[in-house]
């Protein structure tokens, strides 16, 4: 009895569904792109994805960028070529395996055209490979490891076609920090601390190298671990080594501990402290307060100007807080680059159907020059590096002025 009922229901359903499916077919478009095309029928969305770290200890890094992308979409009224823009957000967990699963989930939808991400370089290595093989493009706002694009003018180990970034190659920032320390501050003995993150380790490494090339001496290249709280021993070592400057391109809260505890170490008075963009945040300035006075930060040139102010206004309006990290503008630029490339390369049919040619899209991006973004003038090279190569160093003079005040207090500009 019940079995029969089940069968009846099933057959009925299948019939309904087949009928529904038979409605509507349209004429074909000849796709000659070597890696394929995406067809977006009228009314269907153009799909892009964000692959960012949105959970765990580095959640703010990814969340900030997702917001940047969302604002970029809002700025276009949520539409591109008359199609709604559909954004999927995936978590890259800031790890290789997280990047893999996230990327696989994204590419499993053949309609997705491009990815804004990842947050972390480690996640980018497998993710860029997966997206590259699937024919997508990926633009990251915060990957900085040289191996993703180029190292010393050569293709990096993890380079993949279709990978771009609006963030700086560490090579640039490390060199900027070293130049500033050696030439501007006149420091001859420096120390560096990283925290075992590929980003911080890479940056510290470049700093050490360039500083020594300039003729300085790295008296201690050391490291701490994420989660460490007691920095006094490592600071004692550095003081004993006689360093005049410490470069620690690490994150919160370890960075806070270094600054706060350095005041308690004998022999640490007069040693310059220098962080990087990982510490350029409101919570850091608030946390170190007066103790952080006189500290330097290297980082990409802070976006400024009326467009950026407008952007920040939208951000605050939409999310109820000030930008929480330093990469929202990079992500915003990345998204806009992608939209522009789609607009320029897509084939639009009369009925509104849009065809996006994947290789053509990539080629367009590789040849993109002088794109005006919030972070400056972006031009992509053959390795996918698109960032405006301007790095600035800022100094914390007035903690009460917060991150805004700090960003404006530029003491050095580096352009290779």
């Amino acid at each position, binding site marked *: 009895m*019940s*079995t029969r*009922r*089940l069968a009846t*229901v*099933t057959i009925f*359903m299948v019939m*309904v*569904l*087949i009928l*529904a*499916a038979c409605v509507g077919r349209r004429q074909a478009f000849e796709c000659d792109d070597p890696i394929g095309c995406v067809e977006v029928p009228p009314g269907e969305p153009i799909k892009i994805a964000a692959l960012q770290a*949105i*959970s*765990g200890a580095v*959640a703010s890094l990814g969340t900030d960028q997702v917001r940047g992308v969302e604002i970029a979409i809002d700025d276009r009224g949520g539409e591109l070529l008359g199609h709604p823009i559909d954004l999927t957000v*995936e*978590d890259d967990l*800031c*790890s*290789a*395996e997280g990047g*893999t*699963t*996230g990327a*696989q*989930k994204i*590419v*499993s*939808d053949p309609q997705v055209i491009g990815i804004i991400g990842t947050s972390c370089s*480690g996640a980018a*290595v*497998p993710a860029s*490979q997966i997206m590259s*093989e699937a024919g997508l493009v990926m633009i990251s706002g915060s990957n900085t*490891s040289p*191996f993703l694009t180029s190292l010393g003018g050569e293709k990096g*180990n*993890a380079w993949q076609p279709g990978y771009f970034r609006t963030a700086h190659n560490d090579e640039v920032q490390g060199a900027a920090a070293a130049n500033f320390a050696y030439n501007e501050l006149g420091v001859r003995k420096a120390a560096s601390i*990283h925290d*075992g*993150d*590929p980003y*911080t*380790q*890479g940056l510290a490494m470049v700093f050490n190298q360039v500083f020594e090339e300039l003729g300085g001496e790295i008296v201690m*290249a*050391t*490291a701490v*671990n994420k989660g460490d709280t007691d920095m006094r021993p490592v600071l004692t070592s550095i003081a004993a080594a006689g360093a005049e400057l410490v470069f620690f391109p690490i994150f919160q809260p370890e960075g806070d501990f270094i600054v706060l505890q350095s005041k308690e170490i004998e022999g640490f008075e007069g040693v310059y402290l220098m962080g990087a963009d990982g510490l350029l945040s409101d919570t850091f300035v608030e946390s170190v307060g007066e103790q952080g006075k006189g500290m330097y930060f290297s980082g990409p040139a802070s976006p400024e100007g009326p467009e950026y102010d407008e952007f920040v206004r939208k951000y605050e309006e939409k999310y109820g807080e000030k930008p929480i990290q330093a990469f929202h503008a990079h992500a915003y630029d990345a998204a806009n680059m992608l939209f522009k490339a789609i607009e320029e390369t897509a084939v639009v049919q009369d009925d509104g159907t849009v065809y996006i040619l994947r290789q053509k899209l990539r080629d367009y991006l590789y040849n993109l020059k002088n794109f005006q973004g919030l972070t400056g003038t972006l031009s992509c090279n053959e390795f996918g590096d698109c960032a405006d190569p301007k790095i600035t160093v800022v100094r914390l003079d007035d903690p009460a002025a917060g991150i805004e005040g700090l960003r404006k207090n530029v003491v050095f500009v580096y352009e290779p």
Partner: protein
Amino acid sequence: MAEIAPVPEKAPVIEDVRLKAPEVSLERAAKLGGVAGIVAVFVSANGMVQAFAERDIISGVLSMGYTLLFLVPLIMAYLAAREPPVLEGFEAPEKGPRNVLAGLIVGALTGLIMAIFVLVASAVDMRRVFINISPQLLELLTFGQGMGGLVFLVGGCLLTGAVGGLMQLAEGRWRRALWGALAWTLLIGLLEVIVAQLFRGLGLGFLSPLFYAGTGGLTPLGTAVVFVLAFLYYWSVVPKVDMWQRRYAHMPAERQRSVRLSLTVAAVLLVAILPQVLGPFVSEVLDLVGIFLLMGLGLNIVVGFAGLLDLGYVAFFAVGAYTTAILTSPASPRWSPEMSFWAALPFVILAAALAGIIVGTPVLRMRGDYLAIVTLGFGEIARLLLLSDWLRPVFGGAQGILKIPTLSIGPIVFRTPVDMFYPIVGFCLVAAYISWKLKNSRIGRAWMAMREDEQVAEAMGVDIVEIKLKAFIVGAVIASFGGALFATKIGSVFPHSFSLLVSITVLVLIIVGGLGNIPGVVVGTLALVGLPELLREFQEYRLLAYGVLLILMMLYRPEGLLPSKQWVRELHEEELMQDAWLKMEEDRRRAQAQAAQGDLPARPEEA
């Protein structure tokens, strides 16, 4: 000296009486109602209701946020309305309005507590401390109707409470079918992406828009179809499973074998087409499940069989991954022999065995928790060494090792996750075979004996040192397979992939699956690695749910999802030790009595 009381002349022989069944306790219902209220407040205050308010399960009708909120009184009411377990010698309880009343009490209390919460939250701004008690949340909770909306909130709680109570009145088959249908509807609603992919994979892509609305969530039609199908399944198919099993048990051995064979063939076929149908993303998840499964199988030998609590198991995984990386990658910093995966495999095994000995030897004399912390230490040491600047010339430090070639056999290259599924399954089968084979051998018995009582095992001629080292070595080698596959699959290795969390996850999954049992490890891995990956939408609440799940699991089903008999025994040892024997004595007496009447042989048969 006291006078001795008189004693009845004949020994009193009392026949068993039927004792009156206890009633559903309303007091307990009130308690559970309080708990439900607190849970509901918690779910709201930590932001879940709001975070999932946008995500629809049934498009335009029911959001995930509300589902979460109202599931609380529903489940609690159901539990509160359940009668206490029927003990031997007691009458079966009767169902009635009291069950529903208990459900209503739960609903009422939940509603009341939620209402108080809403009133307090709207009167006092607590946002500085509780960041998620926002105006938007209050709006959601009052259904956008201002304080008048509280009527809906309380009404909803009452309604779900009553439904929970009513569920208890339903006869067993109905009850199961209703719960099953409900669960499947929610699940299908949640797994939108995967189901859509499944449709595509089966060539039924046109079905998706009928089931799912473009804005997320099931369409009303989809909901109805899923609910009805699931209901029918539980109504008509599930009850038959028992019957099929019984029928199978009564088949002659030959028929059994052919049934088994055909089931195996079906399983193999299923596994073979599975990744093709499910597409790259689910395959990716399955690959990950497979890699964790390998580790689970290995750790199951160490913990489940040999009883050595290892919290640093990830070290062996790392050894496998890094050995593979160094030997196969052209980008390995110091040595790069650029071997193929298969040429590197023997070295991987060797390195893992060596690591097993290195970890195993110092801990030979340690037991239990000492072992746990020391192995944890080894796991951390391994990770930190891989990460260190000191060994960066060999392991690449934080930058890891890149460019690990993809796996290939001759001309076949396993590039995509769909391809990788097959070698991973292959390795899993090998590992499962190894653990099954060892379990039923001299060595497996020695492990189990050692787990039960190390001293006695030693006194029975088991060389504890040898057998412990063997457990560590086999466990290490199996984990290193996982590591090797991980490295070649991801194409790069970074020290961050080998954190303590991995060790803990693997330990947890074998225990949740059912310690000491190979199928249990499979189920545990699917549940704890597969499901969270599929439910990526839960984002940061995943680990919260994970924690709750672990606690509930251990409280209510400590033997795991698919337990081994031994583990069940151990968990219920006290009861069983005392009673199994009592029961047997009783059975024997009965059997003897019957034998005296000439019915049955005087030997107790196993039930």
